[in-house]
């Protein structure tokens, strides 16, 4: 008589097996964090139905069961281990098990060396992730499974964490991609995440078993795994219960009195000890006073049409909600609507306009403006007059409430936007980077996980006595913090309050990174749908210790601001589509692959009645009609062209393969020349693409390393496919010394990635992989060292020849760097002549890679600016003291570029820094860059990039930058 109880992060599973190991009872239920009660209920049920289980062996498993098993002295077994026991017993001969749970993903290799792997703390390809994505599509996971069956194409979606994926999915939705395709893409993202995060160099082959809720319930997810792995996996009938079964099987303890323990479990009150912050409100009076104060910040929302019937329409097509407002000539709102963005903003706006026209048949729309992620599609669909950058729209609206506003914070569905105002212009912008959004949709996800809507969920926390201190971190982490709090016995009220506080902390400490309230400003306006929740608003005021203004139309501010701008800007009749046209309005979407260049972007072509068109998904301007704003001055493009001139060739000696990633992006001129001079041939890996990345992803050992490093695995595969017999990829602790810093290091990843490659790509054993340590910073010593390496690998080579080749190589390298410098100056001159703004797009050499920068350089050019690089201006700067240790060659260039811009005091020359997600050293450079620039009153702009980037966010940053500099 054995009972196994599996307490997962979201569900509870229980099995009872008799002495013949036959299952006599099984149950599977969501526990909504009422773990103790539900467990007791299940155990009672067992004894009720099967009295012979009154005394039985009981073993607990599952991440959320650890706590109470320990306190009650119950037998506990780790869940992956339990799975293994169950699989070995029930499905002998299994080679690998893939188990997805609520928040965990696991792979077990059972044959050829047992290995068990679990996702790290930063991994989201799990049940919670699928739930989150389904709620984004406004369907249930099961519905998502259904529609995925009809997929036509698959998009790339990052699944490392829900937040990343959201920022991929939202633009797709906004561009009109079909839900069925997105659903299928989400499943594929889960597969990629599992393989990239957990396989770590081991191929998943043979007899594969799928376990856990998501795989059990979602046939399309299983199919995605089947096709991704090239296997036919098996999902057993009891797939949900394997952990519980494993727990039961592994019971070795004495049989215990089940009803007795049930009683104990039922009355089990967890420690109740968790870190708590102070309550939001101590009593009802405090709350009422708070409400009265905020009620004062209001504009009319029931304005009337005047006899001129003139109205102005503003639309904010945001990431998770769509807002629209119509104002009269006084700026009073006459009609407004706040709609969840169910993935089809066009339909929503159409409905809004129809409603509006029928409510106000006499209205004359005199102007219209649109802002937000969906700006372009809405603008094209309905003939909206102007598109405005969100920051400007919000500022315009905020001024209505507080003319001397100096700080605005907007917490929306999935992003936080903050801006400082100085001299009536937006001075500094903070946007949450892809990894730290803990915003409205984050509260939403938790609310719906517990079966509440966001409003009532957030209200729960108002009078909580001990809000859980959850810290400030991204959603995935937050899930486990909440899990821990539940374990410690926190009530749902206290968790709700804690989540509201953490939204605020996230904004303050992760996005704005403010040390104190005074840093923000004195006149603060808060807005965005999330601030409609009093708990969040109160937490914010408590955290900064200052009262703030929350407009009554907090959620509508973008639309309201847009309407005000329309009122100001559009003088003649609006181009917005008329009531009649609206009646026959049609919207068609077609997915095509662009054949304009080798990028093969997946485009969504939207056509609207009246012949208007909108194309999304493009990374360059080729497929769309040229807008003529492209500056054509792009140093990134120039550098790429320079590098493209170093083509592969054959020599009379062996051919050496070079992987085009990381530092090779700068050293190619050197090594290419060096090997050519010595008579070697050179083979190069192919251009980076998503496909190339996927090819190498199964050998990536650390899922948190930066994307440029991960890509290298694909490049090595590419060289191997070409049949290269020698790959040359030296370790380089030091870089070339450009005398700009105190030392000339490479970062640890650039320096030593060859070690990772060597140890993790098994096929390299079959060829000659040269990864010796080399220093180009000492040219004289270099000759001797490389000579020895070459002789060791290729037999005798004359030292004098090596010396000559090395001289030529250094010359070529310096020539290359010099060309960049000269061309950069040329572009800046040209920009000045044509009165174009200049963006010094700072990063590292490998940011040239289009798969890494996602076409951001081109995007800047399309905005009408010239793109110059940090290494084209750094030679003009002398070494200068910095506040941090300046000892990496690439960083020294960054600081020099910042210094150049700071000293230059030309509003038209600005810095934009590209930062790869996971780049540890950039945590240091970004702060220093900002402080160098801000010390001279200049604006610092940072763009974080990862596997996938969000061009929408990038555009906001750039357009705000240009708006702030008066462009």
């Amino acid at each position, binding site marked *: 008589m054995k009972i196994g109880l599996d307490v997962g992060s979201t569900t509870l599973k229980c099995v009872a097996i008799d002495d013949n190991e036959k299952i006599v009872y099984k149950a599977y239920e969501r526990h909504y964090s009422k773990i103790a009660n539900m467990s007791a209920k299940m155990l009672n049920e067992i004894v009720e139905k099967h009295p012979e289980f009154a005394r039985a062996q009981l073993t607990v498993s599952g991440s*959320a069961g650890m706590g109470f098993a320990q306190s009650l002295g119950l037998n506990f077994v780790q*869940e992956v*281990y339990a799975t293994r026991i169950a699989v070995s017993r029930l499905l002998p001969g299994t080679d690998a098990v893939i188990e997805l749970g609520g928040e965990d993903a696991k792979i077990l290799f059972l044959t050829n060396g047992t290995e068990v792997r679990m996702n790290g*703390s930063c991994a989201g390809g799990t049940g919670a992730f699928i739930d989150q994505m389904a709620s984004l599509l406004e369907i249930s996971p099961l519905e998502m499974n259904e529609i995925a069956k009809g997929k036509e194409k698959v998009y790339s979606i990052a699944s490392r964490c829900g937040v990343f994926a959201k920022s991929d999915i939202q633009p797709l939705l906004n561009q009109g991609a079909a839900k069925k395709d997105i659903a299928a893409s989400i499943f594929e993202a889960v597969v990629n995440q599992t393989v990239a995060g957990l396989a770590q160099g081991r191929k998943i082959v043979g007899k594969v078993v799928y376990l856990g809720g998501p795989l059990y319930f979602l046939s399309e997810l299983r199919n995605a795994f089947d096709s991704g792995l090239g296997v036919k996996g098996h999902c057993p009938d009891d797939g949900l219960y394997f952990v519980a079964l494993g727990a039961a099987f592994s019971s070795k303890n004495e049989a215990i009195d089940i009803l007795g323990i049930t009683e104990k479990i039922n009355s089990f009150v967890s420690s109740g000890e968790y870190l708590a912050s102070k309550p939001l409100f101590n009593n009802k009076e405090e709350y009422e006073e708070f409400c009265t104060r905020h009620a004062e910040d209001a504009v009319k929302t029931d304005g009337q049409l005047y006899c001129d019937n003139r109205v102005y329409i503003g639309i904010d097509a945001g990431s998770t909600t769509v807002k629209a407002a119509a104002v009269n000539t006084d700026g009073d709102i006459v009609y407004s609507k706040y709609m969840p963005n169910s993935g089809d903003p066009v339909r929503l706006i159409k409905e809004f306009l129809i409603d509006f026209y029928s409510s106000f048949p006499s209205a004359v729309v005199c102007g219209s403006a649109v802002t937000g992620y969906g700006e372009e599609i809405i603008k094209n669909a309905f003939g909206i007059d102007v598109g405005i950058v969100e920051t400007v729209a919000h500022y315009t609206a905020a001024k209505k409430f507080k003319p001397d506003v100096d700080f605005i914070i907007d917490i929306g569905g999935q992003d936080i936007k903050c801006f400082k105002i100085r001299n009536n212009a937006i001075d500094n912008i903070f946007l949450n980077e892809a990894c730290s959004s803990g915003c409205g949709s984050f509260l939403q996800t938790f609310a719906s996980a517990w079966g509440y809507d966001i409003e009532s969920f957030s209200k729960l926390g108002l009078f909580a006595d001990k809000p859980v*201190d959850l810290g400030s971190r991204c959603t995935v982490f937050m899930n486990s*913090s909440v899990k821990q709090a539940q374990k410690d016995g926190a009530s749902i009220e206290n968790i709700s309050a804690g989540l509201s506080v953490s939204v605020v902390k996230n904004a303050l400490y992760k996005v704005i990174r403010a040390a104190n309230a005074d840093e923000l400003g004195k006149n603060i306006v808060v807005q965005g749908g999330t601030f409609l929740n009093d708990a969040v608003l109160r937490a914010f005021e408590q955290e900064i210790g200052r009262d703030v203004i929350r407009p009554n139309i907090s959620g509508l501010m973008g639309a309201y601001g847009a309407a005000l701008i329309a009122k100001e800007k559009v003088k003649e009749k609006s181009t917005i589509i008329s009531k009649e046209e609206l009646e026959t309005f049609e919207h068609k979407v077609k997915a095509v692959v662009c054949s304009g260049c080798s990028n093969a972007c997946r485009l969504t072509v939207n056509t609207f009645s009246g012949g208007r068109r909108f194309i999304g998904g493009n990374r360059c301007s080729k497929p769309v009609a040229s807008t003529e704003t492209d500056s054509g001055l792009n140093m990134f493009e120039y550098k790429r062209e320079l590098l493209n001139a170093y083509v592969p060739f054959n020599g009379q000696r062996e051919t050496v393969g070079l992987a085009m990633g990381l530092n090779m992006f700068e050293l190619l001129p050197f090594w290419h020349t060096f090997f050519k001079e010595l008579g070697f041939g050179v083979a190069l890996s192919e251009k980076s693409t998503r496909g190339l990345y996927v090819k190498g992803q199964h050998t990536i*050992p650390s899922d948190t390393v930066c994307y440029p490093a991960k890509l290298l695995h694909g490049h090595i595969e590419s060289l191997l496919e070409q049949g290269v017999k020698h790959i040359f990829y030296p370790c380089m602790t030091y870089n070339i010394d450009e005398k700009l810093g105190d030392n000339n290091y490479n970062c640890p990843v650039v320096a030593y990635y060859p070690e990772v490659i060597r140890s993790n790509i098994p096929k390299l054993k079959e060829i000659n992989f040269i990864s010796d*340590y080399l220093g180009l910073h*000492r040219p004289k010593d270099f000759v001797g060292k490389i000579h020895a390496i070459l002789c060791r690998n290729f037999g005798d080579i004359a030292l004098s020849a090596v010396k000559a080749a090395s001289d030529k190589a250094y010359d070529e390298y310096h020539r290359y760097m010099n060309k960049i410098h000269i061309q950069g100056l040329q572009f800046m001159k040209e920009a000045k002549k044509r009165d174009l703004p200049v963006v010094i797009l700072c990063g590292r050499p490998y940011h040239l890679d289009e798969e890494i920068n996602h076409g951001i350089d081109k995007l800047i050019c399309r905005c009408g600016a010239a793109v110059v690089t940090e290494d084209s201006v750094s030679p003009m700067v002398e070494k200068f003291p910095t506040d941090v240790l300046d000892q990496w060659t690439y960083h020294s260039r960054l600081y020099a570029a910042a210094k150049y811009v700071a000293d230059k005091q030309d509003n038209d020359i600005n810095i934009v820094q590209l930062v790869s997600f996971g780049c540890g050293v950039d945590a*240091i450079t970004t702060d220093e860059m900002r402080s160098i620039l801000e010390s001279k009153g200049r604006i610092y702009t940072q763009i974080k990039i990862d596997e996938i980037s969000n061009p929408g966010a990038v555009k906001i940053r750039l357009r705000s930058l240009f708006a702030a500099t008066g462009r």
Partner: protein
Amino acid sequence: MNPENRVEFTKDMMDYTLLAPNMANIHFSMLVNIFGQYGYKVELLKNDGRAVVDEGLKYVHNDTCYPALLVIGQLIDALNSGKYDPNKTALMITQSGGGCRASNYIHLLRKALKKAGYGQVPVISLNLSGLEKNSGFKIRVSMALKMLSALIYGDLIMLLKNQVEPYEINKGETNALSQKWIDDISEMFKNGKGYSMREMKKILPQITKEFSEIAVNKVNKVKVGVVGEIYVKYSPLANNHLEEFLFSQGCEVMVPGLLGFFLFKTDNRLEDVKLYGGKKIKKIAMTVAIWYLTKIETMLNDAARAYGNFTVPAPYAHIKEKCTKIIGAGCKMGEGWLLTAEMMELIESGYGNIVCAQPFGCLPNHIVGKGMIRKLKELYPQSNIVPIDYDPGATRVNQENRIRLMLAVADENLNNA
């Protein structure tokens, strides 16, 4: 570096309280006593809890490595506590130098102090690379020698304590003995004794003898090794009291000592010359230093072997030779190849169950930690390594769950053996 921005610790500041973060308890307790003997009032910070993390989050870029965030948070939290007069307090922090971002801690600390309104507080860098100097803070030769011997004593006490404590019959006996030795050694230092080679040669085996005499019940326990980024590896604040947790799960824990790290950092300079060229004099100086440290190491290991039946780590030169077959000796940033080497050594001496503790997103660990696990698994199929990330958001539940998985496999291996 921007020299104007630095507040120096001058000679008139001798009455200041010097606050320093704690890392390896045994070692650091002795170091504090040594500082005291030379007139520096050093206090090791033991403040713990959420406030430390919160201060860190407030004043340090949140993507910076966790140790920096904690150390800085701890120092600022201490200044905020009101226990210390900010005008009479200085901070002390170690600075490793090298290509890892950790060499920037001190600068991040200064930035944070300025932001928090403690711009006047001087920060003293304790480093091996001569990065910064302070006129009021000098390490005299005798002091340096004492510090070095504190390191040796610390390594031995830690090694023995770890191997005896889990098996002791009278609870608390081992801990009391190590405390007794910390006190005795500090007392000897105070009297100018106990730090010469000659004396250490006598005292070290004595320590082993006393530890070997503690009554134990040698049951079969799961043996776990802990490696990782140096601060996270040792500091309970950073690793969520990892050792305690492992003890509570009935394990014996082995944590490699600090001397190896010292040797490694010295050896790196020699490797640099070998790999990239450099001055002969540097080469000679470093060769001498290594010869000396190796002599000390031999003494330490001999002492550990003198009584009882303790597992003694293999010498540095030996593990280097073995490890450099899979990773280059030039891999030196952070813990560099030494981390991989320590894992190999642990596996070979029976501690194949390993927790590799690292700050979330630690750059060197992508290479020498996670990057090498596959290779190690290939070489040692029985190895059972779990990498654990630590950062302000990672929860104990998740970390412990993963460690438990490793322990479950370890248990099975133990039972099958």
